[in-house]
C-alpha cells in the first residue's frame, strides 16, 4: 500500500504540546506509509494542495490526516482526496487536537500519544474499503400538521415555491387560535381581517391538499421518503355535495346546547355546526356526542332540510396514505385551565381562584371572544354571568406560568402583551371602567412592544399593581380579589366585576402521542425539542422533520410566522435536489449467518431494522432475517454490538478494522 500521512500543527493548537515534525518522522517509518508531511494549517488551501499533490505525485491509495476532530474537518479532507481522484472513504482522521494536545501538557508524552493515534489510523485505513455514498430519492411534497397561522404560513410558502403540500388540521376548520382573537398587539389590527385572506388562499391553492377534521395516524419511512397515514374523521357530511348554506345548523334541535370550542364555552352551538362564519372549508360537521340522532336514533331534521342531500349519517372514518419528503409540525398550544385536574396530570389547578367555579373569572381566550366583533356579545364587553357591563376588571398575569407549584416554571411570553391589549380594549369600550393588572414583571421585548404597554398605562390609565393575587371569592355579585402591592408593601383588595386570567400557554395535551408517532423529542412540559436552541431552531433530531410555532415553546404571531417560513425554507432546501446523499457507514446484515432472533430490531432506536423473508425458488419460506433500511440507519452500531451471531456489520467500522486499531496500540 502507499499511504500518505499529513500532520497538522493547527497553528499552535496542536504544535504547542505535540512535536508535529517528530510525529511526521515516526509515521514515515510505519509499514505502508509512502509519504509523511507536517504543515502549519492543513485545512488551508496550500495544506489541502499538499494532500492533493501527494496523492497524484506519489500515487497514494490511502490518506491519514492527523488534525482536529473529524466533526470539524473530515469533510474538508475527504473532499480534497476525492478531488485528487481518491475514494473519499479512504481518508481517515487521527484526532490530535481535542483528544490529545488540548487535554495534555507534557510534550514528550503527548507526542508519543499522537504517534499512537496516527498508527491506529494507518492500520485502519489499510483495511478500509472504497465506499460510495447512498443516494436516496426525494419526494418533493410536504406534510404540514396543524392549520393555525404557523401551518398556514408554512403551507403557503412551500406551495408558492411550486411544491405540493398536504395540510392536516384536526378541527373542522383551519385558522387555529388566531381566528379566535379580537385584535392583535401591538398594532390593534383585527386578527380575522389579516388571517382570513390567508385561509382562503390555502383553500384555493392548487398545490395545497387540505384535510380538515383529520389527524395523523402513523408515520413511516425517513427523510425524503415518509409514508404518512392520515385518519379523515367522519364529518357525517358529503363534502362534494354540501354548499355551506347553513340550513342544517338552523334547524338542529340541539340549537345551543353543545359546548362551543370556538367561543370557549361562552355560548353554545348546535350539534351540526360550522365553527365560525369565515371557516375554511365552510362545511359543517356533526358532533356525534351531542347529536340527537346519534344518541337516540331519532331526529334526522338536518337531513330533511338539506336540499343537497349532503347529510351522511353512516359516513365512516377514512384512512388516507400520503407520500411526502418532509414533515412540518405546527400543532400549536392550548391554554392552562384553572380547574382541578386528575392526579396524574401535572396541572394542579387554582383552588385559590375557585377552580373555575366562578362564571366571571375567565381566561384570556374567553376575553378575546367577548371583545371580538364575531363573538357572543358582538364585541360589547359584557360579563358572562349576568350580561352586564363590568365597571371594574382585574387582569391577572402569570396564572400558571412561572409558578412551580402549579407545575410550570417557564414564562408564557405573550401574556404581558395580550393583557395590556385586553386592558386597552376594555378601556376603549368602557370609558368609565377601571382596569387593574396584577403582574410579577412586565416582559415586553419586541418591536413597538414596550411602547404598547406604556400606552396602556399612560394613555389608557390602566392601573398596574406589582404583586400576586392570593385569593378570589364571590360576595354579593362582586369578585373580591385579594392581592399584594409589593411596591408599597400593602395588601390590596379589589371588588371586581370581572376577572381575566392570563393562563399559561401549554403544549397540546396529546403532544407526546404525536411526537412518538413521528420521533420528535419533547421536554417535560410536552413542547417539542429542536436540535440546537440557537443554530438549528426549526429542525428536530429526526431528519426531514421541522417545527413551526408554539408547539416548540410559547410564541406570539410574528415569531410563529417567522418560524413557519423558516421551516418551509428548510423543506425547500431538501426539495432542491433530486437525491439525498447519505453516509454509506450504515449497518449491513449477513443474511446467510443471521438466525432471525431480532435482538437488533429491539434495540434499534431508529426503527431501521426490518424483517425480510428468504424464500426458495418455489416460493417456500426458508427463514426470516433482519434487514437494515439504509435510509433510516444512522450507523450507531448498537445492532452490531448485540448481535449474538455476529452477523451485523457496520460498514466502515467492521470488526476487522476495529481489531486492527486495537492491535496497533
Amino acid at each position, binding site marked *: 500500500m502507499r499511504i500518505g500521512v499529513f500532520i497538522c500543527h493547527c497553528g499552535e493548537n496542536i504544535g504547542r504540546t505535540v512535536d508535529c515534525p517528530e510525529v511526521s518522522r515516526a509515521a514515515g517509518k510505519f509499514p505502508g506509509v509512502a509519504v509523511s508531511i507536517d504543515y502549519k494549517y492543513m485545512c488551508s488551501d496550500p495544506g489541502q494542495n499538499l494532500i492533493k499533490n501527494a496523492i497524484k505525485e506519489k500515487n497514494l491509495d490511502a490518506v491519514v490526516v492527523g488534525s482536529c476532530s473529524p466533526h470539524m474537518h473530515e469533510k474538508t479532507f475527504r473532499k480534497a482526496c476525492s478531488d485528487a481522484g481518491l475514494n473519499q472513504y479512504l481518508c481517515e482522521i487521527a484526532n490530535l487536537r481535542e483528544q490529545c494536545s488540548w487535554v495534555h501538557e507534557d510534550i514528550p508524552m503527548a507526542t508519543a500519544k499522537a504517534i499512537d493515534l496516527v498508527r491506529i489510523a494507518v492500520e485502519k485505513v489499510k483495511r478500509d474499503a472504497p465506499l460510495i455514498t447512498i443516494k436516496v430519492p426525494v419526494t418533493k411534497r410536504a406534510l404540514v400538521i396543524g392549520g393555525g397561522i404557523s401551518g398556514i404560513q408554512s403551507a403557503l410558502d412551500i406551495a408558492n415555491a411550486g411544491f405540493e403540500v398536504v395540510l392536516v388540521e384536526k378541527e373542522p376548520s383551519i385558522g387555529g387560535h388566531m381566528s379566535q382573537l379580537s385584535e392583535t398587539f401591538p398594532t390593534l389590527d383585527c386578527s380575522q381581517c389579516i388571517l382570513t385572506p390567508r385561509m382562503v388562499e390555502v383553500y384555493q391553492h392548487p398545490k395545497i391538499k387540505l384535510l380538515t377534521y383529520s389527524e395523523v395516524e402513523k408515520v413511516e419511512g425517513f427523510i425524503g421518503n415518509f409514508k404518512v397515514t392520515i385518519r379523515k374523521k367522519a364529518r357525517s357530511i358529503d363534502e362534494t355535495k354540501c354548499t355551506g348554506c347553513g340550513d342544517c345548523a338552523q334547524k338542529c334541535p340541539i340549537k345551543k346546547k353543545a359546548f362551543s370550542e370556538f367561543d370557549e364555552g361562552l355560548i353554545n352551538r348546535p350539534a351540526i355546526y360550522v365553527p365560525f362564519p369565515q371557516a375554511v372549508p365552510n362545511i359543517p360537521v356533526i358532533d356525534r356526542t351531542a347529536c340527537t340522532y346519534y344518541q337516540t336514533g331519532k331526529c334526522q331534521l338536518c337531513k330533511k332540510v338539506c336540499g343537497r342531500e349532503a347529510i351522511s349519517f353512516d359516513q365512516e372514518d377514512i384512512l388516507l396514505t400520503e407520500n411526502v419528503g418532509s414533515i412540518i409540525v405546527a400543532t400549536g398550544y392550548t391554554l392552562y385551565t384553572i380547574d382541578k385536574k386528575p392526579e396524574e396530570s401535572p396541572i394542579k389547578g387554582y*383552588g385559590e381562584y*375557585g*377552580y373555575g367555579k366562578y362564571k366571571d373569572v375567565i381566561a384570556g381566550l374567553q376575553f378575546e371572544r367577548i371583545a371580538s366583533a364575531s363573538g357572543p356579545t358582538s364585541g360589547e364587553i359584557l360579563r358572562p354571568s349576568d350580561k352586564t357591563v363590568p365597571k371594574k376588571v382585574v387582569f391577572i398575569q402569570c396564572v400558571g406560568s412561572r409558578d412551580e407549584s402549579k407545575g410550570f416554571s417557564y414564562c408564557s411570553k405573550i401574556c404581558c402583551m395580550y393583557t395590556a391589549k385586553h386592558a386597552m380594549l376594555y378601556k376603549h369600550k368602557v370609558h368609565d371602567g377601571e382596569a387593574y393588572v396584577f403582574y410579577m414583571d412586565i416582559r415586553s421585548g419586541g418591536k413597538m412592544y414596550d411602547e404598547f404597554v406604556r400606552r396602556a398605562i399612560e394613555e389608557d390609565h390602566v392601573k398596574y399593581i406589582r404583586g400576586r393575587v392570593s385569593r378570589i*371569592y364571590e360576595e354579593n355579585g362582586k369578585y373580591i380579589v385579594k392581592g399584594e402591592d409589593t411596591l408599597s408593601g400593602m395588601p390590596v383588595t379589589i371588588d371586581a366585576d370581572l376577572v381575566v386570567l392570563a393562563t399559561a400557554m401549554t403544549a397540546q395535551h396529546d403532544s407526546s402521542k404525536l411526537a412518538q408517532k413521528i420521533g420528535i423529542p419533547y421536554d417535560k412540559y410536552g413542547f417539542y425539542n429542536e436540535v440546537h436552541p440557537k443554530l438549528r431552531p426549526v429542525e428536530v433530531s429526526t431528519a426531514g422533520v421541522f417545527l413551526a410555532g408554539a408547539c416548540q415553546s410559547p410564541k406570539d404571531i410574528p415569531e410563529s410566522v417567522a418560524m413557519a417560513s423558516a421551516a418551509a425554507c428548510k423543506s425547500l432546501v431538501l426539495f432542491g435536489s433530486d437525491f439525498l446523499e447519505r453516509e454509506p457507514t450504515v449497518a449491513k446484515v449477513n443474511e446467510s449467518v443471521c438466525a432471525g432472533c431480532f435482538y437488533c430490531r429491539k434495540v434499534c432506536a431508529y426503527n431501521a431494522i426490518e424483517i425480510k423473508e428468504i424464500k426458495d425458488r418455489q416460493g417456500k419460506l426458508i427463514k426470516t432475517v433482519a434487514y437494515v433500511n439504509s435510509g433510516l440507519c444512522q450507523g450507531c452500531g448498537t445492532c452490531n454490538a448485540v448481535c449474538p451471531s455476529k452477523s451485523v456489520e457496520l460498514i466502515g467500522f467492521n470488526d476487522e478494522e476495529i481489531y486492527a486499531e486495537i492491535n496497533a496500540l
Partner: protein
Amino acid sequence: MKIGYYPGCSLSGTGREYDLSLKKVLNLLDVELEEISDWSCCGATSAHATNHLLSTILPVRNLALGKKQNLTELLAPCAACYNRLIVSQYEIEKNPQVKKQAFELFGEFDSKGISIINIIELFQKIGKDKIIEKREIELKGIKAACYYGCLLVRPFEITGFDDSEQPHSMEEIISAAGAVPIDWNYKIECCGASHSIAHKEIAVDLSEKIINDASKHGADVIVVACPMCHSNLDMRQKAMKKNIKMPVLYLSEFIGLSLGIGANELGLNLHFISSDLLLEKVK
C-alpha cells in the same frame, strides 16, 4: 381501633372541652386512645420563631416516646401540634445532621414508623358509615361552616392532606352527622392566631371577618379543629363590632351532639358564646 394520643398543652388548658368531647365521642365510636406518657411541649409558635433546631427536636422527643410505646399511629387533635409533629418528622428525614442530634438525645428509633394524623383523618379512618350507624340525632337543617384555618392543610408537600386552597374533608364528616355544610369564602383565612395575645385588635379584626362571612352565608355554627382558632373565634366575638353570637364548636363536639351526648358533657357550657339557639335547632 387503638390510636396513640398526643393531647398537647391546649387540650389540657384552654381547649379542655376539646379533650373532653373527643374522649366521649371516640369511646362511642370504639376508638381507644393511648396517651404518650411523659409527653412534652411541641414547641408551638415560640420554638420555631426562635430556634429552628429546638422547634424540630421538641416534637421529635414525643415521636421517640411514642415509638417506645410501640405506637404506629399518633393522633394530634390540636392543628398546631399536628403541624409541628409532622413537619419535624419530615425535617429530620431531610436533614441527617438534625436526625443524628435527635438520636443522640433520644436514642435511635424508627422515626418514619409512626404516622401522625389530625382529627379529620381520624374521623375518615372511623368512617362515615360508623358515624351514621351510631348517630342518635340527625343534625338535619343545621347549617355548618367548616373552618380549617392555616395549619391543618398546610404545607401540602409535607402533610399531603386534603387541599390547601379548597379543603372539603371536614364537610364530608359533618354531613355524616346529618348537618348541611355551607359553601363560604373564609374557610382557610387567618384567624389572627397568637397575635391574640400581644395584638388583640388584629385577631379581633381577622376573626370578625370570618364570623361575618359565615353568618352572611347562613351558618348556624362554625366547626373548627384547632384550639387556637376556637379561642379566637369564640372568645374574641365579644370585642367585635357586630354582635352575631355565632357558636363555635370543635368537630368532636359537633359529632358528639349527633351521637346523642349531652351539651354539658361535651363541654359546650365552657364556651364564651352560648350554643343555646343551636341546641334548640338540634332538638
